[in-house]
């Protein structure tokens, strides 16, 4: 009512709620000490020991595995498998996220719960399940596929499937909350401005979920590179053919090649730690904007 007549006030920044930090009692310090000790003993110390043992003899350990053709083949296979699985999971993940958030259909709730299933299923069970269906000799589909010239189990496609299975929910879990949060206003706005479905997705929806997809991809990549149990069951672990990097670690350790095991483990750990560092660095930046 009065704003027409009052002098115009310059717009003020939103008031910042200022609070003093609560004083800390001895409990807070004890808690801090306990938590730090717990994490150091459980995580930090053991992880750093692996790093130290890898470099006990300088770079010879790392050099050793990079010169071993079998290990290099395994590393290459791991990278190929991880990238294939991540590509498949990203496409599928975005699709299913859109389906889960933007449409209504019977069984939606069941599907959204089932999507999380791979996170809590044992990798060994995943491997077993794939063998039962795609096994070359007596799987449900295996013999047919093999007749058509496609070997799944004990071959690369099986490893990709096992890896894709275990990393499946990661993209979806990142994208779904973002899709829910942005709502449909912008998409509807784009449609009223004449955009068709594809344009709306490409120019409005995708930019909005871009970062969620990136996090999902990075997490999937870390998970895919490190998958062990499921791969062990479906791969057959054939030296130089279907042996992945994680299987190399086990093999080397059991054959008393500790140095080699540590070095390979260190390489894998480096990649996965790099992945979480990337995620933790880019995430807060994006959330602030």
């Amino acid at each position, binding site marked *: 009512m009065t704003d027409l007549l009052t002098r115009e006030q310059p717009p003020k920044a939103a008031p910042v709620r200022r609070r003093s930090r609560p004083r800390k009692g001895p409990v807070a310090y004890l*808690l801090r000490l306990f938590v730090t000790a717990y994490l150091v003993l459980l995580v930090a110390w053991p992880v750093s020991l692996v790093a130290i043992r890898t470099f006990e003899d300088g770079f010879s350990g790392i050099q050793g595995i990079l010169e071993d053709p079998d290990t290099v083949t395994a590393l290459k296979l791991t990278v190929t498998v991880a990238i294939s699985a991540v590509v498949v999971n990203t496409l599928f993940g975005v699709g299913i996220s859109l389906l889960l958030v933007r449409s209504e259909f019977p069984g939606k709730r069941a599907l959204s719960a089932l999507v999380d299933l791979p996170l809590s*299923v044992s990798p060994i069970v995943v491997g077993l*399940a794939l063998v039962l269906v795609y096994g070359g000799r007596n799987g449900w589909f295996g013999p047919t596929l093999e007749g058509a010239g496609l070997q799944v189990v004990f071959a690369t496609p099986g490893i990709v499937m096992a890896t894709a299975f275990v990393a499946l929910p990661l993209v979806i879990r990142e994208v779904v909350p973002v899709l829910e949060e942005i709502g449909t206003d912008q998409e509807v706005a784009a449609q009223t401005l004449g955009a068709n479905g594809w344009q709306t997705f490409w120019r409005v929806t995708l930019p909005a979920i871009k970062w969620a997809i990136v996090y999902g991809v990075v997490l999937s990549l870390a998970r895919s590179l*490190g998958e062990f149990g499921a791969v062990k*069951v479906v791969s057959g672990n054939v030296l130089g053919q279907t042996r992945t990097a994680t299987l190399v*670690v086990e093999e080397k350790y059991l054959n008393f090649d500790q140095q080699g095991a540590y070095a390979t*483990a260190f390489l894998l750990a480096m990649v996965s730690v790099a992945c979480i560092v990337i995620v933790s660095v880019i995430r807060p930046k994006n959330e602030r904007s």
Partner: protein
Amino acid sequence: MLWFSLLVLIPLCAVVVTAAEGGWDTFWTTITNGQTAAAIRLTVTAAAVVTVVNVVVGPMIAWVLVRDRFWGKGALELLIDIPFALPTIVAGLVLLSLYGHDSPLGIDVANMPSSVYLAYLFVTLPFVVRMVQPVLEQLELDVEEAAASLGASRFTTFRRIILPSLTPAIAAGAALSFARGVSEYGSLVLLSGNLPFKTEVTSVRILSSVENNNLAGAAAVATVLLVISLLVIVLLDVLQRRVAVRD
């Protein structure tokens, strides 16, 4: 959808169908077989104990990460994610370096049942912490101040106001942690030695059945694990709905 069916649904159904093919009696005999039963018992006990530890320690870690401020907190934040990101086989190796035969602490749990507990503790570390953290961050300080102005002590505020708000998140984290523990395989391979009746867990039991080409037996034990996974998922769904009602 087709891809999802081919990749997830049909294979998992195959497990259950294969387990059911032999009939109930075969199924029951398989899973109550001495060695298998011992493995299941160890798996479930260890997962349960570790989950209890996480329920206590997880919120403490989350609390320190959210409410405390000190030098090096960022590093702790990073440590929480390592067990999740680290390949499981590497996790086993990592634990072996501090708690194995040449432990600098003189603690050797390798090939002991306690190694199973240790591995579970490691791989399930992030779940409760990461579930509780966002809830704790969103908890309004106003609410705690309101309790204080009504005469509640710090402890009472924690017990009656903060803890009830965290309960659904803790429960969800506990469910995930239990499920992960029960299904764990990779980190144990090098650490536990897979000694029957002593350190052999369910996943390892399934794998050895697979390697002996006893797929039906493997499927029977796998079904037990699948049922546990499904129960956890249903529980999580219920919990999430309950939280949604409250807000």
